[in-house]
């Protein structure tokens, strides 16, 4: 069995490599601008700030790889926070558990419906998830017309281990250096890792790469797309746990900014919008890059009025750079037909 050695060049020509470079640059810039960057407290605060985008981006990446896209991520996230805070009652700790279970089921349903639209009804994903985003928003507003709701006291464990320090001193020590959001991210990574080692994980790439070929090979493309959407909603569910842990309330509008940012982050992380290509862990890198860009703008004291403009410009440059890198490295390998 002959296989050529994977050379360093093979790695550097991938778009993932360029995103790592960009990450390193942003990391360095932020470290320079933020004085206390390397202090434990501020690292923890950064992880907490970045976690929601990271989780939503990883879920988005799975959907994009399978050939779809999810414009309803943000409102789904809002809906889940509203579900949680509508079920929980401050005085009854058990409702926390009920809330988690029911919200999880709702998340799976969201994924099922999105996947059904893409896989069975064959509606272009941009349109169907745009439509479902209004359904989630509507239900969220119905549950929580204004931000609020209740949360059990131990729910804060999803935000800070401090919450449980009375239960056990162990949690108190953890809260000194480990943010729970990091654990949520790790859970997400494990979820994807397991999936990627199964047939369905391989099929997600096949269906996104060329759905006719996948169908010809006997793969159930609709089922694969549904699974991808459901994995996405599990990631969104994890992000919802974090938000409710942090704020204790549900808000029908809080997820809105995350939808498009998660798509941009995925692209910056090397996920091709055409599907079939990309690495979910690098989508995480893309989310980090976007988050650092925000920090840099903040610390560079750019006037508030220009922050959005500069942020958007940097995102465009990062995406264009990663696309140019992809087309440069594939052009040199492509066999031209003409």
């Amino acid at each position: 069995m002959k296989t050529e050695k994977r050379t360093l060049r093979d790695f550097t020509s991938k778009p993932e490599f360029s995103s790592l470079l960009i990450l390193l640059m942003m990391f360095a810039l932020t470290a320079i601008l933020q004085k206390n960057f390397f202090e434990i407290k501020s690292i923890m605060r950064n992880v907490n700030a970045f976690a929601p985008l990271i989780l939503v981006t990883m879920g988005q990446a799975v959907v994009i790889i399978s050939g779809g896209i999810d414009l309803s991520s943000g409102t789904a996230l809002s809906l889940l926070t509203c579900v949680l805070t509508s079920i929980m009652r401050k005085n009854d700790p058990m409702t926390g558990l009920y809330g988690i279970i029911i919200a999880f089921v709702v998340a799976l349903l969201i994924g099922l419906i999105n996947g059904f639209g893409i896989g069975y009804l064959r509606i272009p994903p941009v349109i169907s998830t745009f439509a479902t985003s209004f359904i989630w928003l509507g239900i969220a507003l119905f549950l929580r017309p204004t931000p609020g709701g209740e949360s059990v006291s131990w729910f804060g464990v999803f935000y800070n281990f401090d919450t449980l320090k009375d239960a056990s001193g162990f949690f108190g020590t953890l809260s000194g250096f480990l943010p729970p959001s990091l654990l949520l991210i790790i859970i997400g990574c494990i979820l994807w890792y397991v999936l990627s080692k199964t047939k369905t994980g391989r099929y997600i790439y096949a269906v996104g790469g060329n759905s006719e070929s996948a169908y010809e090979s006997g793969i159930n493309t609709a089922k694969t797309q549904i699974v991808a959407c459901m994995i996405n909603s599990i990631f969104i569910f994890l992000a919802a746990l974090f938000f409710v842990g942090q704020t204790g309330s549900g808000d029908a509008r809080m997820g809105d900014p995350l939808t498009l940012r998660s798509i941009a982050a995925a692209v910056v992380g090397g996920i091709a919008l055409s599907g079939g290509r990309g690495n979910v862990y690098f989508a995480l890198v893309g989310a980090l890059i976007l988050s650092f860009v925000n920090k840099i703008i903040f610390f560079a004291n750019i006037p508030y009025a220009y922050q959005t403009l500069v942020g958007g410009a940097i995102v465009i440059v990062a995406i264009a750079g990663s696309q140019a890198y992809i087309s440069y490295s594939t052009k040199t390998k492509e066999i031209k037909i003409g």
Partner: protein
Amino acid sequence: MNILEAKNVKKNFGGVVALSGASLTCREGRITGLLGANGSGKSTLSKIIAGVYAPDAGEITYLGKKIHYKNPHEAKQQGIGMVYQNLSLVPELTVWQNIVLGDEKNTGYFLDDESARERSADIVHKLLPNIDIEKKVFELTPGEMQVVEITKAVSRKPKLLILDEPTAALEKAQVTSLFKLMKELASSGVAIIFTSHRLWEVVEICHDLTIFRNGQNVGSMDFDKDEKDVKKIIFYITGSQSETGIAKTCIEACGETRLSIENLSLGTMLRNISFDLKQGEILGVGGLAGQGQQELMLALAGNFAKIACDAKIDGKPIKLTRPSNAIRNGIVLVPGDRETEGLFSKHSVFSNLILPKIGIEKKSFIVPYRKLKKECEQIANILALKAASLDVPVSTLSGGNQQKVVIGKWLGLETKVLLLSDPAKGIDIGAKADLYSYIVNQVRSTGMSVILYASDTKELIEYCDRLLIMYEGSIVATLDTEEITEENIIRASMRVEEK
């Protein structure tokens, strides 16, 4: 043992008869070759056996049982494997991932990639000893992709393997390896159906041969008993030794060289093509399907920016790098697929007819609709266009009339070279005759030159003054008027002189 028996299979595609009663027998451990001209039905029969199409009539028995497959998956599960164009490769996955796609095995709950790699390497290295199975498929050459596709089918351990033109994209060394693999499979009991347009390949590797013409099988040979008589085979394919009296309506080519093409090359699609086209001449381009004829038409019309070519029209050098260049010099194209390439199907007849006129002649800023409307009515008259009015969507017209619109849009512009890429495809006999008589008329009265590619050899025989035969992107033969006969065309197309 007979693995497969097909009896009297019929198949229509919306009025066009593809199979009018075809029969085939495939025995265990033998390689059966299918031969026939374009459109003779061999591909259709293969696809019916593989479950891609359902037959309209006839009986197919596989392993002793009658079969009615609703889709190709059922056929695959029963052990019938088919390889045709690269239909089932995912470009972003690696060679080995593609080979086991849909057939992955697990250890426990997870994919068993180790054994998948081994299984793939075992087979694919027999055909391509040096291929890196970790390469992504989009990095491979078309020939290598074809090999991966073949490996994929073979790895399912089929009992009946159908290879439809597998050698088309392969180089000689790869063909030799493929034949070796086919012999191995045959000796282990697999029945193989093999089609190729290279006559010598079929003669070399097959045990049995079945020849198709016009949707039926017209002859079969068993090479255990019969001699490998090439002349007899060609006789079966063409069906006649002599002309069947098709009237030749070509005129004497007159005049100067209108278009001179030298060393036209485009990657591996078109290789070093050179020819001259005279004023008032109808030059045909023939050969088996897919040898580059349609690409040549597109190239002459300026569609490929990367083309390398020395072209002169009426002595003046021109660059064929953009369609607008070609059109301004009087070279216009009636493309092969009128619906997607020649027309705006949702637009009206009028809109389609005037479009080039607006773009090319940049005379006025405001489009003179009234004047153009009158012109179009004249054009519709000349062409005997049957349409409810000029304002109906062109998609509502019949094929023949649609084609008239495609030609009509070039009228009124000075056309020096009319490129026709299979203009009469899918058009009924009456409209076909109409179309050609109009074209021949134009040639006689205006001295316009025509380059005609037709997939139906009868059209080439009837209308062409000279005929170029293409094979794998180059011109392999030029037939003068008297030499344009069906037998000569088939001989040249199938490269009978070689080997």
